[in-house]
């Protein structure tokens, strides 16, 4: 068990390392001089003559270590990352790390609330659908899922926003992360991811109900309710993975929803940074999200080590497969 855990931990570490390498190479491949990107266009810098600007560029090049080899640059960058230094925002001049830390709670609150809504919808409707398979109730739920899964989240968000904020006046249009502003973006984000979860819970429960032990329990006269409860518990094990993966999707998808509802999370920050050409900020955002994704994958693996005795006893198994 401990060996498995260490192996998963090492795997996550390697993945994270490779991800930073890809990010580093990608950014170095980008057209444009990183120093000039860092300084901003010459008119933005409080220097009139181009000579002074050029000198500043040369200075900064040495200061940032860009005159050294790519490998040396990467190790320096990694060293700073390990000290949790994500660089300085060009736009605000503040540390990107603390800017992201200010906004992360808003995104996490949104994602957690959306996940809760998604799970509640998934459990209720997925079970309701499976227990009445191929009857009217099931068909209506499945149809609703297919239609909802085909709708773009941002348009649904806009329509909800106009309905609740403009027609009903029950929702504030502002850019603050107040708790009473959370429900609408959370419902939008949660409803958009629900169809997938409903489908998976339905399919798992149906597969579980087809197992011989269910038939045997029913034929021995066990109450249907009790049998369903047992089957549901088994059917929900794979849902841990699905929920974790959908949490990752929610953090990514939050970019769009945060932008529509002016919810001040890291997604909105990244999007604003693109428009401001604030490169360190975007890089920092990417690193934080990637680290979160790797941590969530690791967490899922560890949870399975506890939940599934087959994996715990050391049998090789990839829960993501």
């Amino acid at each position, binding site marked *: 068990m401990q060996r498995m855990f260490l192996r998963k931990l090492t795997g996550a570490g390697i*993945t*994270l390392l490779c991800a930073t390498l*890809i990010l580093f190479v990608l950014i170095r491949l980008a057209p444009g001089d990183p120093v000039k990107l860092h300084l901003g266009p010459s008119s933005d810098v409080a220097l009139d003559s181009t000579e002074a600007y050029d000198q500043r560029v040369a200075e900064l090049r040495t200061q940032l270590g860009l005159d050294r080899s790519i490998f040396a640059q990467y190790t320096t960058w990694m060293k700073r990352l390990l000290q949790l230094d994500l660089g300085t925002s060009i736009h605000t001049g503040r540390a990107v790390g603390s800017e992201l830390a200010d906004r992360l709670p808003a995104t996490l609150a949104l994602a957690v609330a959306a996940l809760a809504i998604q799970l509640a919808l998934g459990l209720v409707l997925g079970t309701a659908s499976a227990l009445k398979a191929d009857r009217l109730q*099931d068909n209506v739920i499945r149809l609703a899922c*297919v239609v909802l*899964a*085909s709708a773009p989240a941002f*348009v649904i968000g806009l*329509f909800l926003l106009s309905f609740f904020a403009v027609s009903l006046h029950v929702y504030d249009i502002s850019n603050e992360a107040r708790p009473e502003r959370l429900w609408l973006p959370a419902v939008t984000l949660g409803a958009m991811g629900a169809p997938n979860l409903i489908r998976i819970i339905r399919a798992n429960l149906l597969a579980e109900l087809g197992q011989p032990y269910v038939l045997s329990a029913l034929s021995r006269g066990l109450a249907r309710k009790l049998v369903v409860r047992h089957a549901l518990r088994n059917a929900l094990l794979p849902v841990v993975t699905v929920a974790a993966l959908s949490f990752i999707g929610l953090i990514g998808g939050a970019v769009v929803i945060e932008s529509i509802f002016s919810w001040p999370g890291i997604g909105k920050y990244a999007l604003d940074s693109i428009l401001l050409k604030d490169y360190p900020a975007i890089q920092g955002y990417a690193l934080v999200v990637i680290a979160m994704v790797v941590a969530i994958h690791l967490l899922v693996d560890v949870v399975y080590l506890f939940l599934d005795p087959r994996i715990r006893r050391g049998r090789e198994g990839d829960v993501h497969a």
Partner: protein
Amino acid sequence: MPSSAMKRPLGLTVGIILLGLLALAIAGASWLSPYDPLEQRVAERLERPSVEHPLGTDRFGRDVLSRSLHGGQHTLLASGTALGAALAVGLVIGLLAGLYQGSVLDTVFMRLIDVLLAFPFMVLALIIAAFFGTDLLHLLAAVVSVWWVSFARLTRSVVLHVKNDGSFAAAKVLGASDAAIMLRELLPKAIGPVLILATFELGSLILSISALSFLGLGSQPPTPEWGSMLADGRDHFLQAPHILIGPTLFIVLTVLAFNLIGEGLRDRLDPYERSDI
């Protein structure tokens, strides 16, 4: 009450008919659309749907129906190209990784997939848009570099499955080269499941590309593209919600068609997902 055997072809049929109609309308955009998609008539701006403009006009007085039809060409061409490229890359890597399972090549590919799974599509799209530029080509590059992963994983698992049945061993014994085995034994068996996956992925790809264009990271104005049309209408949404309804309707119907077809095909071909177990 339709039985499950009756119902499944229904979704598939509806999906195919819907897709056929949309394809005809979009392919024939130049003949069908009543106006030039780029022509601005300032006097007729933000008009509500009427007989002359069935879906109304946008903030420059451009006909929303004409723009939606032409926009479909851009959206579908872009999504289709990106998906085709991702599918080809995924298929080749999946075949190689599966055939040489356990080799260095396989290990490298699998590690790369693990790493790419840590990059949510949105994040990669944001990075590429920020550092390389906000246009459709870069957006499509982001799509291909993330989307091949699911095809590669599926192909590899099919190949590993096929390697266990007799045809693979027979081909080996008869002295077929690796290339021949890949083309004649493995590819035909992998292509079916991969195409079903592609149908689903095309739907979600259209949604993703629209979302990014909506955020201003894809097609740039004045090109009519569904996502950028929605972005364009965003500021006038409150006075004239109809400008969003046109492109939204087209996006929903197209994605719905692909999802219905994908679901229908999967239900028919994949016994594990059958609802009548």
